[in-house]
């Protein structure tokens, strides 16, 4: 197939191609080994190269809130807690442990003898400094907003929010009960920086960052490449398996696919399209590896619009939607149908939509509408954006629209808008039902509940329920696991009943790697943390 494509390309491009093609030979470089360096690793492995379409906003933890930056920070910095591959509960990283004294107080005990890669000691004072500067800098591209539990009404860090009675003890005094806070301590937003290196009131330059993680930043060329070197002074459970890791940034999926196909990078992670992945699955040179994901795609009802204010209309849509077909036809089976707003594997998760609605059934949908006295067909405007969630969303929107129209109960129209305009339009009630996507900040069911359900959610869909708000407060304050899981289950049942949104699918965490790579599959879990330190390359 590859050969045929080459011949076709040759014919299409014209005879002059041959002169250039003749210049290329195997000795010309660009092979996987050359592109990846060839040093022997301290852990017995070789240097290797990761290719990604993610980008880096800032290396400084106070200046970023995106996948690309956070994944670099997980390698360069330590956090108090860390989520091991394949698990959902965090364990100690810089901290031996972090425990709740009560629902508003968390105390962490640091490991002894921690140092930054520049030799400076890492103490509780650095932890306090790191979190406070993140809140106080409040960078427009930053994630300090996630630390709101430590901020006062003025948005600045409260003076009494973080206490450091000694060099290895940190106590957090939260604004309100929050059982997710310890999980937050495992995210890159709480990365520990050296207070002797980082300024307290502004970001540090990208190539100057110093951390205590398994790698240290060796070189960084914005938008092109990061070179990470194993941090010899790192003393923890996340020792680097390779002496160097090169991270190569791609602007588009096409060159990334090409690079992994030709072995110019050893691993491609985020983001190849379903079509690319299907193509690569047929290749003998690379392996497509899938892990569990937590990406969430859903359709939100705009309750400000009369058409969908009647809950029966929303329930009828939930009764008709055929998620299996959407996953298969729009995404080539690369996603998993979602029957709850909380992904499988999270505490308290239950497939409430499956339980309430069962299989897609137009007859039941008609019954729901008839009993509510709703005149059919109901006119619905579906909205989506082709420029933010990948090219397959148009297929999903078309498929959903067809399913609703073919039921005879709905008369649908589809409208699309470029991402920037789309955000304005869906908040201005331009669509009755619109598509959005979500990645969690922390691996906790609440991260799929509070942002979506409290007072209309972040997307302002005008859904509001006192019962839901109360349950959200309760589950955040509940420290007993089974009781909290029960509350989370109740919330999912309410969502299936009220249908402020319809879950569509959960994504998988997918990477493509050459056969020499080890440890890639293990790190592909719902955290979307790509644990560079656990990956090695065999000779």
């Amino acid at each position, binding site marked *: 197939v590859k050969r045929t494509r080459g011949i076709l390309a040759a014919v299409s491009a014209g005879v002059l191609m041959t002169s250039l093609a003749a210049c290329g030979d195997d000795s010309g470089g660009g092979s996987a080994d050359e592109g990846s360096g060839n040093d022997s690793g301290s852990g017995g492995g070789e240097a290797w190269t990761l290719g990604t379409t993610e980008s880096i906003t800032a290396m400084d933890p106070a200046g970023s*809130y995106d996948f690309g930056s956070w994944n670099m920070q997980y390698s360069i910095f330590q956090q108090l807690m860390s989520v091991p591959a394949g698990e959902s509960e965090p364990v100690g990283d810089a901290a031996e442990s972090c425990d709740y004294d009560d629902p508003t107080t968390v105390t962490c005990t640091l490991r002894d003898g921690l140092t930054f890669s520049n030799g400076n000691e890492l103490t509780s004072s650095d932890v306090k400094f790191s979190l406070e500067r993140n809140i106080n800098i409040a960078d427009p591209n930053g994630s300090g907003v996630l630390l709101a539990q430590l901020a006062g009404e003025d948005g600045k860090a409260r003076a009494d929010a973080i206490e450091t009675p000694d060099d290895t003890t940190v106590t957090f005094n939260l604004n309100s009960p929050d059982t997710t806070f310890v999980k937050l301590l495992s995210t890159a937003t709480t990365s520990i920086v050296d207070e002797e290196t980082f300024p307290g009131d502004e970001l540090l330059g990208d190539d100057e960052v110093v951390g205590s993680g398994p790698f240290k930043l060796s070189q960084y060329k914005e938008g092109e490449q990061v070179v990470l070197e194993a941090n010899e002074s790192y003393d923890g459970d996340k020792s680097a398996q390779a002496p160097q890791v090169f991270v190569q940034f791609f602007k588009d999926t096409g060159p990334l696919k090409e690079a992994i196909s030709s072995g110019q990078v050893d691993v491609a992670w985020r983001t190849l399209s379903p079509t690319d992945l299907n193509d690569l699955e047929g290749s003998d040179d690379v392996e497509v590896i899938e892990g569990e994901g937590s990406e969430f795609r859903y359709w939100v009802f705009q309750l400000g619009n009369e058409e969908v204010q009647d809950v029966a209309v929303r329930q009828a849509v939930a009764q008709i939607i055929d998620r299996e077909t959407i996953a298969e036809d729009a995404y080539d089976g690369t996603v998993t149908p979602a029957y709850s707003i909380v992904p499988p594997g999270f505490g308290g998760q239950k497939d409430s939509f499956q339980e309430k609605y069962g299989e897609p059934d137009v007859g039941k949908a008609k019954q729901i509408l008839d009993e509510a006295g709703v005149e059919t067909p109901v006119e619905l405007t579906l909205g989506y954006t082709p420029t933010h969630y990948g090219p397959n969303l148009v297929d999903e929107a078309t498929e959903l629209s067809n399913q609703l129209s073919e039921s005879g109960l709905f008369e649908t129209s589809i409208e699309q808008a*470029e991402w920037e305009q789309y955000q304005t339009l869906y908040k201005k009630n331009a669509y009755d039902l619109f598509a959005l996507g979500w990645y969690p900040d922390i691996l906790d069911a609440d991260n799929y509940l509070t942002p979506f359900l409290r007072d209309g959610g972040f997307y302002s869909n005008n859904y509001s329920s006192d019962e839901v708000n109360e349950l959200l407060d309760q589950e955040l304050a509940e420290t007993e696991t089974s009781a909290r899981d029960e509350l989370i289950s109740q919330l999912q049942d309410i969502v299936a009943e009220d249908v402020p949104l319809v879950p569509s699918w959960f994504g998988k965490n997918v990477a493509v790697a050459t056969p020499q790579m080890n440890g890639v599959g293990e790190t592909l879990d719902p955290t979307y943390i790509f644990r560079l330190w656990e990956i090695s390359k065999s000779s």
Partner: protein
Amino acid sequence: MAVAGGSLPRYVGQRLLLLVPMIWLVLTLVFLLLRVAPGDPVSAAVGGRLAEDELERRREALGLDRPLVVQYLEYLGQVARFDLGNALSDNRPVLEIIQDNGGATLTLTMGAFLFALVFGIPLGLLAGRRRDSASDVFIRVFGIVTYAAPVFVTGLLFVLLVSGTGWPTYDIASPMTKFNTETRTHILLLDVLLSGSSEAIWDVVQHHLLPCFVLGLFLSGVFIRLVRVNLLQTLKGDYVEAARARGIAEKHVIRRHAFRNALVPVITVVGLQVALTLSGAVLTESTFNWPGLGTELIDYLNARDYAAVQGLVTFFAIIVVVVSVLVDIVNALVDPRVRY
């Protein structure tokens, strides 16, 4: 452009003065177009995950809530002080972006020009010399196709063709990893030359060939047609006829008389092609993951980063305008009729 008076210094002065309103116009257009387009840097980055009040707070922090006039005047003031500001999405100074990434665009465009001249001029010459022959027809078709085919299509076709050969098909980053090349000039080709590592030099040259060739192919179409047409015209000139009448061999007539004169308009067009080359470079860089200013511009456009886009477009505009003025001046020097 006819200018009364005819003095070269005066003509040059007028052209230089025109620089100011031209650049101001470009700056104003860029500023307005960016604001007219929906969205802003905040909604582009985190619009899908934060509530409206937090988005508003971030907009305020960036000063985007201030009146447009204030932002516009501040922007003009910055440019007047040769300060293009900092990117909003990643805090990089725009001048640093130009310094870091301008070298890649420079080598790409220079390489492309080289390819275009090496391919375009001889082929145009050949076509003109053998008018209406099979080779003329082939070269004309080739010239039209290379000019008409979008750079990104040609680029992808070449990537597809070359990918199986092991020849590098994207970016120029490997010298940084393999050879640990020290950044001295921000022009990688110069940096590896200064490093003296033959391996690194060969690697960088290899990485340059494909993108430069593709963009050069695009430009060569213009040169082919231009050289051919001009050669045909000059071959009809009286002085060429006179040369032939004197018994000078045809190859000497073409080389010494027709070809040199046919190249005069080409020199002018080379200057004017700068704008075309820069726009082609944006697409070429995107196709080959080339770390130049075009790639940065697209990224910042997607991020609705007003400051970065304004700064980069301003830089592009200044280059194009300055080159246009230089071309005018060279024209005036070469052909005095222009300034009268």
